[in-house]
């Protein structure tokens, strides 16, 4: 087991700068998820750590050793690929033991290791099959087994669940989590799926356009996003953004939403935006912070009701997603199942300012 440090890591492909100076320190045992839209450089970072891509600039350190020029096989890492990359002409056992056989590990030791990994992953009865005889989930397990038998210091996962159907993805997510709890190996996991990021990570690293936007616990990046990008990327449905103006009235600071209600800001936040009074900012409010008027969650007291006209209704069972128009903007709200809004209807929704994010449109930073 080892910690991994990235220092000012840069990668350029011809003229395209894919990774633009990444600094990240991953302590031993941590499960870090790199998340971001496609093309944000997250896979490139992972592949550089794996040694599959050359480093254009900066340093990669594994267990305090600079590994920029160390070939992949000597970095003591194991990687699980998106398409599993199982060798189709080998059996499951041969697939898992290939790396050990190349390293000339004793046959009896290989057998033990393969058996143990197969037991952990529940694929012991598949050892003599070939990849084509396996289902997607089983192949995924074999790919993980191949990583486990190597007993690496670092696990790398490159979008390992993206080829599975939704149900299986949920199951495998739990298994990966269980595996990490069991093995406690430092893990770097790349995904574009924010649910995977939130559920698996000790720490989420949100990337955009080759840079780290924010690194923090799932809680931090969700509730205290540092930039507009992070605020908009994490969470589904995405956060609502709309223009607002900060004004002072009767000694309290309020954010006046464009064509919407004026939301009084909590004292702490009011202090932070004192310098922006009179300015136009962008307000970010998550769908769950716009609720139905008769909400039972007790947060009603601080809410500001506002009449809106409902555009689209998406009932999801345990909640209903409501899209409505406010001026020119289409916003999204999450309401409970007790109310049954209908498209075209006028209704009153309550805006909760306690989780309002105010963003400086010039810097895109959350204030």
């Amino acid at each position, binding site marked *: 087991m080892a910690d991994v440090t990235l220092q000012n890591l840069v990668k350029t492909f011809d003229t395209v700068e894919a990774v633009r100076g990444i600094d990240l320190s991953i302590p031993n045992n941590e499960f870090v998820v790199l998340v971001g839209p496609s093309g944000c450089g997250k896979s490139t970072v992972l592949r550089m750590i*794996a*040694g*599959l891509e050359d480093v254009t600039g900066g340093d990669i350190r594994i267990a305090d050793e600079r590994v920029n020029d160390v*070939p*992949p*096989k000597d970095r003591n*890492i*194991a*990687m699980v*690929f*998106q*398409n599993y*990359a*199982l*060798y*189709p*002409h080998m059996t499951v056992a041969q697939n898992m033991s*290939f*790396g050990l056989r*190349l*390293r000339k590990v004793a046959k009896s030791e290989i057998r033990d290791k393969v058996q143990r990994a197969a037991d952990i992953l529940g694929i012991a009865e598949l050892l003599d099959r*070939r990849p*084509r005889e396996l289902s997607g989930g089983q192949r995924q397990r074999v790919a993980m087994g*191949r990583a486990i038998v*190597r007993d690496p210091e670092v696990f790398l996962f490159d979008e390992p669940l993206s080829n599975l159907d939704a149900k299986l993805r949920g199951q495998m997510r739990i298994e990966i989590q269980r595996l990490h709890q069991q093995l406690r190996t430092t893990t770097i996991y790349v995904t574009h799926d924010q649910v995977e990021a939130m559920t698996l990570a000790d720490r989420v690293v949100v990337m955009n356009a080759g840079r780290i936007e924010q690194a923090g616990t799932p809680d931090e990046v969700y509730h205290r996003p540092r930039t507009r990008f992070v605020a908009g990327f994490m969470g589904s449905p995405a956060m609502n953004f709309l223009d607002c103006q900060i004004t002072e009235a009767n000694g309290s600071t309020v954010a006046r939403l464009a064509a919407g209600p004026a939301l009084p800001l909590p004292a702490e936040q009011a202090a932070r935006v004192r310098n922006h009074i009179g300015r136009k900012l962008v307000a970010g409010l998550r769908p769950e912070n716009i609720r139905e008027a008769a909400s039972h969650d007790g947060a009603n007291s601080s809410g500001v009701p506002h009449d809106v006209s409902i555009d689209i209704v998406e009932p999801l069972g345990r909640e209903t997603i409501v899209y409505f128009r406010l001026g020119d903007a289409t916003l999204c709200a999450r309401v409970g199942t007790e109310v049954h809004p209908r498209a075209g209807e006028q209704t009153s929704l309550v805006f909760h300012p306690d989780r309002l994010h105010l963003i400086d449109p010039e810097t895109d930073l959350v204030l």
Partner: protein
Amino acid sequence: MRVLPPLLRRKPAVAVLMCVPLFALILGLVAYPFFHALFLATLNKAETAFVGLDNFTFLFGRQTFWMVVRQSLLFALVAVVFKALIGLAAAHAINTIPTKGQRKWRGMMLIPWVIPPALSTLGWWWLFEPTYSAINWGLTKFAMPAVPWLSDTFWARFSIILVNVWVGAPFFLIMYLAALKSIPGELYEAAEMDGAGPWQKFFYITLPMIRNIIAITTLFSIIVTLANFDIVRVLTQGGPLNTTHLFATYAFRVGIESGDIPLGASVSLFMFPMLAILAFIILRNVRRRAASLA
């Protein structure tokens, strides 16, 4: 008339009808010549009397015939082995070039294969020909002895194999290149993470992944090489002293040039069972392996 005749209204009938051109082709170009050759092989030289297997017993008693058998096998085996090795090496080399530069190399490498062999062999003949030989001219420039390319048994055999390899290697190249491109890059990356070096990647990933293509290409090439005619015909006409004759050129010599068509037919028929057995074995393995990969 709006209504089709009853026979045509049945779908199988239509299907059979539409296959008629194919059947006609196979019948006219494969079955008829084959059975006619069988028939010819049972006649006497004047094609006036049925002699049974006499032509074959006659052939089996002749040393020249067995020499042709040995030569054909030697020629085909050596040529195919070199074609396969050179094709594989060249395919690998081209595959490592970035995709943008690959086209022109692929195009250039294919040239020997697309020139009609009779023509290109004529070019080679000029290079080998004792009086004008450019190769010998080059050799003597560097104070090396001239080589009797086409008049010495060893060098004549060497020359026809060389030309055959030159013509045939691009076919292997193109087949292997297509096969190499079909191997997912992730497999090599996974192998690299597993600690495989270039040779291990080749033996544990590349070879097993393209084994089927190798088998099919080799089979195809063995058949074509065993039946080769034009190179020998142009370069040596089977000489010196019949030591470069192959089945096809020997059949031509016996059947057409010496006027014993039934005997010539017997020579060419001799190839058939050999190739049939070979094809059967290789194709059976290919099917098995394809089923295990899929």
